[in-house]
C-alpha cells in the first residue's frame, strides 16, 4: 500500500538519483501517491505529472526549442555518459513541461487546478523558465515583485521576494538550473525534498566535474560548487536544513584525502552524498515515522498542520500498523498544503477532518495529540517551521495537549533565535491575493480578489503594483515556536525534550553521521 510506494519512490530517488532527477518533485509522499490512478485532481500543485499530458496534447515545438538550450556543465561535455545525457534531456523536459503546461490554455482539469492554485503568481513566474533560458535580454525587465515602497520595514533586512531574475551562467550544470526553477515555482517544497534534491543535483555536478590541470581538487571543486549554491539561493533562499547539508558537503570536500586521485576523490564524494541522503533523510524519515507511529494509539484524535513529509509518513505508517485514529488536518492560506495531505489520507482510508487555522480553537478541546513538522530545530529548543506552527503549538499548550515535533537530526542547527523576524523568508506577496479557499481556488475566478479593481488576467507584478498606495502585503514562510510550546521532539535516534537539543547536537558533531543514542 501507500507506504511501499513511498519507500520505493524515495529509494529510487536516492539510489538512482541521476535517473529520477527530473522527477525530484515526486520524491515526496503525496506526489508519489498522486501518480496512482485514484489521485484526486485538485491536489495537483507541485507535481510534475501534467507535463506528460501537456506534451502529448501538443506543446508547440518552437516553445520546446526555445526553452531548451542547455548550457553544458563545466567539463561535462566530453565525459557525459548516456545516462547523464538522458538525465539532461529529462531535466529539459521538465522545465519545458512546466512552462508549457502553464501556458497552454484549457488543459486537463488537473492542470487547470495547478494553474489556478498558483493563480496570481503564475502569471509572473510562468515567464521564469522561458526568459531565463531563451531571452536573456528580457531578464532586465524583471522588476521586483514589490516596489521598494511596498517593502515591509520590519523585514527589510531579509532578501525580498523577487522574480528570481538570476541569469543563468554558462557554467551552471543543467541539473542545478532545473532544480532552481523547481524551487522558485514551488514545485519542490519542504525541507526534506529540497535538501535531497539539492544533494542529488550536486552529486551530478561532482560526477561531471573535471579537474583543470594544475589545480587541487578539494579546493577547486569547492570553488566550482559555489556559483551553483549561489544560483539555488537566488532562486529561493535556502532553508536551514539545506544550509546544514551544504556545510556538510563542503566540509566533506575539504577533508578529502589530498593523496587520492581525482576520480577516486569524486567517487568518494558521490558515495558520501548518497549515504547522507539515505541515512540522514530517507532512512531518518522512515525511522522517525516508525517511532512516532508507535506514539499513536487507538482512538487518538491527531491534529496536524500543513503537510509535513515526516508527519504524513507517520500517519500512513500508523494506519498500516492497524491503528484506528482520526486526523484533523489544519490548513492555512496562501499555500493550502494541507489539501494534498488530506487527499493522501483519504486514499489511505484514514478518517480526517479539514479545517482552517482559525478554527483550531474550536476543535482543540477534542484533540489528543498534535503532530507537527519542523524546518529547523535550534539549539535553544525553539523550532522553526512553516508559518502558523507556533499558533497551533501555543493552542495545544493552552488546552494541555502534547505538541509533538517530528524532526530528522540533520535539521538540528546550532543557531539560536528568539523571534520569527531575525531570520525568515519573505515569500511572494502576490500569493495573498489568491482568491479565497474552496470556490476561488479551484475555479478561475480572477475577480474574486477584492484588493484591486477587477482586472482579469493581469500579471501578479502589476497586481501588487496596483495596490492602494499605503497597502502592503506580507507573506512570511516560517515562524518560530518557542521552547515552552514544544512537548517532545521525535528524531530518528529517539525522543528527546527540546532542552536536550544542544546535547544531541554535541553528540552528533563528535561523530559526523552516526549518532548513537539509545531508544
Amino acid at each position, binding site marked *: 500500500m501507500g507506504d511501499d510506494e513511498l519507500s520505493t519512490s524515495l529509494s529510487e530517488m536516492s539510489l538512482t538519483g541521476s535517473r529520477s532527477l527530473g522527477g525530484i518533485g515526486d520524491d515526496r509522499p503525496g506526489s508519489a501517491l498522486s501518480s496512482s490512478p485514484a489521485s*484526486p*485532481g*485538485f491536489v495537483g500543485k507541485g507535481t510534475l505529472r501534467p507535463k506528460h499530458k501537456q506534451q502529448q496534447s501538443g506543446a508547440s515545438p518552437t516553445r520546446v526549442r526555445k526553452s531548451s538550450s542547455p548550457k553544458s556543465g563545466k567539463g561535462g561535455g566530453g565525459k557525459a555518459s548516456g545516462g547523464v545525457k538522458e538525465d539532461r534531456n529529462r531535466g529539459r523536459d521538465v522545465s519545458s513541461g512546466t512552462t508549457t503546461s502553464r501556458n497552454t490554455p484549457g488543459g486537463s482539469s488537473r492542470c487547470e487546478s495547478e494553474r489556478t492554485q498558483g493563480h496570481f503568481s503564475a502569471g509572473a513566474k510562468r515567464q521564469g523558465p522561458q526568459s531565463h533560458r531563451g531571452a536573456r535580454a528580457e531578464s532586465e525587465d524583471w522588476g521586483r515583485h514589490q516596489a521598494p515602497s511596498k517593502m*515591509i520595514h*520590519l523585514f527589510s533586512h531579509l532578501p525580498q521576494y523577487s522574480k528570481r531574475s538570476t541569469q543563468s551562467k554558462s557554467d551552471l550544470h543543467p541539473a542545478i538550473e532545473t532544480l532552481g526553477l523547481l524551487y522558485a515555482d514551488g514545485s519542490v517544497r519542504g525541507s526534506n525534498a529540497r535538501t535531497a534534491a539539492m544533494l542529488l543535483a550536486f552529486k551530478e555536478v561532482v560526477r561531471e566535474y573535471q579537474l583543470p590541470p594544475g589545480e587541487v581538487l578539494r579546493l577547486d571543486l569547492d570553488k566550482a560548487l559555489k556559483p551553483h549554491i549561489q544560483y539555488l539561493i537566488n532562486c529561493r533562499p535556502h532553508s536551514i536544513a539545506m544550509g546544514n547539508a551544504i556545510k556538510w558537503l563542503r566540509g566533506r570536500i575539504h577533508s578529502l584525502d589530498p593523496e587520492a586521485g581525482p576520480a577516486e576523490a569524486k567517487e568518494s564524494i558521490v558515495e558520501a552524498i548518497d549515504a547522507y541522503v539515505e541515512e540522514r533523510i530517507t532512512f531518518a524519515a522512515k525511522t522517525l515515522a516508525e517511532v512516532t507511529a508507535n506514539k499513536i494509539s487507538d482512538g487518538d484524535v491527531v491534529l496536524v498542520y500543513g503537510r509535513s513529509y515526516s508527519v504524513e509518513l507517520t500517519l500512513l505508517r500508523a494506519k498500516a500498523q492497524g491503528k484506528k485514529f482520526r486526523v484533523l*488536518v489544519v490548513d*492555512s*492560506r*496562501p499555500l493550502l498544503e494541507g*489539501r494534498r495531505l*488530506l*487527499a493522501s*489520507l*483519504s486514499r489511505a*482510508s*484514514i*478518517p*480526517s*477532518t*479539514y*479545517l*482552517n*487555522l*482559525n*478554527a483550531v*480553537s*474550536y*476543535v482543540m*478541546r477534542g484533540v489528543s495529540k498534535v503532530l507537527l513538522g519542523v524546518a529547523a530545530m535550534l539549539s535553544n529548543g525553539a523550532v522553526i517551521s*512553516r*508559518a*502558523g506552527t*507556533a*499558533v497551533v503549538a*501555543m*493552542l495545544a499548550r*493552552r488546552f494541555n495537549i502534547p505538541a509533538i515535533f517530528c524532526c530528522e537530526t540533520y535539521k538540528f542547527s546550532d543557531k539560536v533565535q528568539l*523571534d*520569527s*523576524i531575525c531570520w*525568515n523568508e519573505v515569500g511572494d506577496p502576490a500569493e*495573498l491575493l489568491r482568491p*479565497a*479557499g*474552496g*470556490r476561488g*481556488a*479551484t*475555479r478561475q475566478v480572477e475577480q474574486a480578489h*477584492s*484588493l484591486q479593481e477587477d482586472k482579469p488576467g493581469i500579471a501578479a507584478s502589476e497586481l501588487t503594483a496596483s495596490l*492602494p498606495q*499605503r*497597502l*502592503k502585503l*506580507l*507573506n*512570511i514562510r516560517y*515562524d*518560530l515556536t518557542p521552547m515552552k510550546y514544544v512537548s517532545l521532539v521525535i528524531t530518528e535516534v529517539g525522543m528527546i525534550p527540546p532542552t536536550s537539543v544542544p546535547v544531541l547536537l554535541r553528540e552528533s558533531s563528535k561523530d559526523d553521521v552516526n549518532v548513537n543514542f539509545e531508544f
Partner: protein
Amino acid sequence: MKSSVAPSGKDLDAWLSTWPHVHGQYRSLITSLQRRKVAGSLPCAKMTIELLKAVMGTCRWTTAAELMSVVKRVGKALVDAQPLQLVVGNVVRRILFIIREEHKTKLREVRAREGGSTASLSDDGEAGNELEASVPGLRTGVMEAIGELQLELDNVYNEICELALEHIHANEVILTVGRSKTVETFLREAAERRRAFEVIVAESAPDIAGREMAKSLAAAGIETTVISDSAVYAIMARVNQVLLPCRALIANGGLIAPCGGHMAALAAKELSVPVVCVTGLFKLSPVYRHDQDAFNDLRSPSALIEYADTQLLPEADFLNPAYDYVPPELVDLYITNTGGHQTFYLYRLLGEYYHHDDSSLD
C-alpha cells in the same frame, strides 16, 4: 373583540394580523432574520426597535404588564428567528427594562399627586400587581425613552470614536483580525485626526474579510499591511495593541469574536500585548457562555473546498465554524460608547441595562 394579551407561538401571527401594517413589518423582519439578510449587528438592533415601536404604537394594550407581554412575545419570535444574533434579544430586553422604568416613574408621579406615600414602592420591587396598574402617560413616556435608545444607537460610532485618540499613540502598531465596522471606524477616526500609526490586518480565512478592511484603512491614509492568519504569532512580538472585533459581549466579560479571534487574543496574551475590544454596548448580552461550542455556527464548507473535490475525498469532513469564544481573562479592555470598561466590570453594566426578570423571554 380580541384579547389585549398577546398569545404566544403561532397564534401571535394571527393576533398581529389584525394590524396589517405591523404584521407586514413583523413578517418581513422575521424572514430577513431567518435568511440572515440583515448584515451587521447595528442594523439588526435598529430594525428590531423600529418593529417594537410600531407594535407598541399600534397594538392594543392598557397596562405595563400587557405591553411587556406583547414585547416579550414578539421579541421571542424574533430571537427564535435567528438565535445567533444576540443583539435582537438585547434590544428586546432593553425595551422591557425601559417599560419597567417608565412605569415606575409614572406610578411614582401618580402616587405623589394622590398624596400617598411612595414608601410602598421599594426601589427594586415592582411587584406583579403594580405592573398591572394602569398609569396615564406610559405610552408617551416609553416612546420617548425608546427614542433616546435609538439616538444612542445612531451615535454609537461617534461616541466610540471620541475615544480613539486616547488609545492610539503615535507610531503604534495595531493588529486586527478580519473586518469590523466598529474597529474600522475607530481607526479611521484616529487617522483623520492626524495620528500616525500602522495597522496589520490578518486576512481571516476562509472569507478573507480582512482584505476589505485593509483596503478601506489604506484608503483612509493608514499604513496597512495584510498578513495571512498563519503569521499572527510571528508578527505579534512587534505589535503594540490588538483590536478585536466583536460579535457579542457576554455576561462573564468574555466575547464572541469572528473565528480566529481566540487565536489572536491568546497569542497577544502570551506575548503580553494588550487586547482591546472596541464595541457598542448594545452588544452586551445577559447570557453566559463558557466554551467554543455553546455559541457557534457551522457555516458551509464550500468556503473551504469545492463540492466537486469532496467527491474524491470520501473519508474527509470539513469544518467551518463562524465564531470564537474569547474568555474574559484574554481581554484587557473594552472600549464602548459609554467609555472604557475593564472586563470584570461588565456584569455590573448588565444591571444598568437589563432587568434580571427579563433574562428569559418565555
